[in-house]
């Protein structure tokens, strides 16, 4: 037996390329479905863990998935807007802590997430460099944003105009990077976090400009009345909030009317959560409350339906490849006819020949198995990052 192993090993070592190809084929067939399984499980877990850790979301009635994807994964599909007044309502009800979200703009390809400091506490986001948001126009960026754009605290980041042809004239805002978050391996790594008020500045709802009653450039003035001054669009809008101009930034109208995409709700307990959900059940209510866990469960059910199809495809491909492998072995037997005849001529019996060939195949399968295990260990240990980079990258 030991001799068969030695001989088979010598054969395999001699025909390295042929053996390597076979091992690679067998390994791939085994690893592909297994890796897919691991990655899907991991992505399910990741999607679910973020969704499950988010109790309730309030947003406009419409696609619940849009609400969840926009506020949990900062997807650029913006759901219908709701107004800030709902946050005051929730506050007044005392049933939950509301964390408003305005996720509608981007800065160099990364989502600008307008929210409040409560969000940092809720997600336990730690600031690795620099400091927390303090003033209007400041931003704390995710670890991935910092890495990809090469930004450190003290640098600045320009918001992208919402559309190229925005007639309202949304001026890009030069935001000051004051902090970089520690890596959390979630969508927060790819977020440009700003105060909700700064998000409104990005949109131009809160803005600062030269004091129109004191400007010396008459060309910007359309009409100067006793106590009212009408200015035209030439009036410069600041693209950067500085120590000198911050005082000029002001809200137009009531902040209660300002837009949000969603409000994350942290109910005091299960009971208040149920009460809150009840209040927004009515289909005539323009707002709805969704439970992200449920929404993602639904999404995953679909993904797993797709996975079944995928599994079937892999099965068919696997069978085809197995047949091809058998053919390869059969062909190699024919190629090795001469060699087999030699073994026979020098005294090898049929069973000896069969044993030698079986040992060779066993070694190939064993090597593939080992490779497969190694590959799976690697996939498993990197599945976290892999899925994160696939999902949030």
């Amino acid at each position, binding site marked *: 037996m030991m001799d068969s192993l030695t001989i088979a090993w010598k054969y395999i070592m001699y025909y390295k390329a042929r053996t390597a190809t076979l091992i690679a084929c067998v390994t791939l067939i085994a690893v592909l479905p297994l890796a897919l399984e691991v990655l899907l499980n991991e992505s399910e877990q990741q999607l679910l863990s973020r969704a499950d850790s988010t109790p309730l979301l309030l947003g406009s009635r419409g696609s619940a998935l849009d609400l969840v994807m926009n506020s949990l994964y900062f997807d650029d599909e913006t759901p219908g807007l709701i107004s800030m007044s709902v*946050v005051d309502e929730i*506050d*007044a009800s005392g049933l939950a*802590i*509301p*964390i408003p979200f305005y996720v509608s703009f981007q800065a160099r390809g990364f989502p600008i997430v307008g929210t*409040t*400091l*409560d969000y940092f*506490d809720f997600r336990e986001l730690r600031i690795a460099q620099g*400091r*927390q*948001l*303090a*003033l*209007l126009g*400041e931003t704390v960026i995710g670890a991935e944003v910092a890495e990809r754009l090469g930004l450190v605290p003290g640098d600045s980041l320009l918001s992208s105009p919402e559309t190229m042809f925005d007639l309202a004239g949304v001026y890009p805002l030069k935001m000051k990077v004051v902090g970089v978050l520690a890596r959390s391996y979630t969508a927060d790594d790819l977020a440009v976090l700003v*105060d909700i*008020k700064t998000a409104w500045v990005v949109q131009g709802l*809160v803005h600062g400009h030269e*004091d129109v*009653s004191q400007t010396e450039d008459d060309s910007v003035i359309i009409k100067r009345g006793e*106590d009212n001054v009408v200015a035209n669009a030439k009036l410069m809008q600041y693209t950067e909030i500085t120590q000198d101009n*911050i*005082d000029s*930034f*002001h*809200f137009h109208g009531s*902040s209660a009317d300002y837009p949000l995409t969603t409000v994350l709700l942290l109910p005091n307990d299960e009971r208040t959560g149920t009460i809150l959900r009840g209040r927004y059940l009515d289909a005539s209510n323009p707002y709805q409350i969704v439970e992200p866990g449920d929404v993602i469960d639904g999404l995953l059910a679909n993904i797993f339906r797709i996975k079944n199809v995928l599994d079937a495809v892999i099965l068919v491909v696997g069978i085809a490849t197995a047949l091809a492998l058998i053919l390869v072995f059969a062909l190699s037997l024919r190629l090795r006819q001469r060699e087999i005849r030699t073994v026979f001529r020098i005294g090898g019996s049929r069973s000896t020949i069969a044993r030698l060939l079986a040992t060779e195949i066993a070694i190939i399968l064993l090597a593939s198995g080992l490779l497969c295990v190694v590959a799976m260990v690697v996939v498993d240990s990197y599945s976290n990052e892999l899925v994160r980079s696939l999902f949030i990258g």
Partner: protein
Amino acid sequence: MRIILLTALCAVMSVSILAAEQDRLTVYTINYPLQYFAQRIAGEHADVVFPASADVDPAFWQPSTEIIADYQQADLILLNGAAYANWLNRVSLSRRKLVDTSAAFRDKYIHGNEGVTHSHGPDGDHSHTGTAFTTWLDFNQAAEQARAIADAMTRKRPELETVFEHNVTALEADLLALDKQLQSIVATRPDLPLLASHPVYQYFQRRYGLNLHSVMWEPEEVPSEVQWTELERSLKEHPARWMLWEAEPNPDSARRLRDLGVESMVFDPAGKRPNEGDFLSVMQHNVKNLQEVFN
């Protein structure tokens, strides 16, 4: 054995001291009256901080990023509401920690349009258009604000409810005593015409039914000739004998007023920390000053 027991005792004691230390609430306020209310309600159970230096008007203040960071670290941040302290619109604070102490009477805010932007002092421009904010000069409202503070503290430290309740009741009694005093003073001569040097007495005027007209002067500056002319004109329709000042007026202004038959008296709104005494003693002094006017 005794040593072990002693060590254990020491350990237990230091732990409980530490625990008590951690249990102390950190409360930041955005003006002096709220600091005073909060400190009286919390007693030893909270560090109540109003970080602005004594020479700035908290209504038109812009805290540094370091001070904002301190606010962010607090357990509670007490706001006055009524659009007071514009800087709040330009900084990031945790909503969860914010307590709008005047939310209960939000629908009773006084909104006015009393003038265009003007400039004075080191703080740059400020405006009195919009909402009147010296809510606490209506002592009934002040008591409501105190109650809101007590409620917020109780939510944070339910185990201290009886302490907070006891303290806030005492504070309410003090505030309502002032309220009652003022009502009875004004009731003696409700029509007595008065002048205010600055439009900060809106709630005060509404609550106590004062016949008060306001100009836009500053205690430390002598008014311009135009302002004097305007005053003389208005005195014809509103023959006031007294003008209320936020602080001791410039002697030249006081002298020229006296020449017009108008005496000066100080009614300090105490938005910033007083140099002497506390909120209650300043208000008691204010009431005493007003008592003299009505006598």
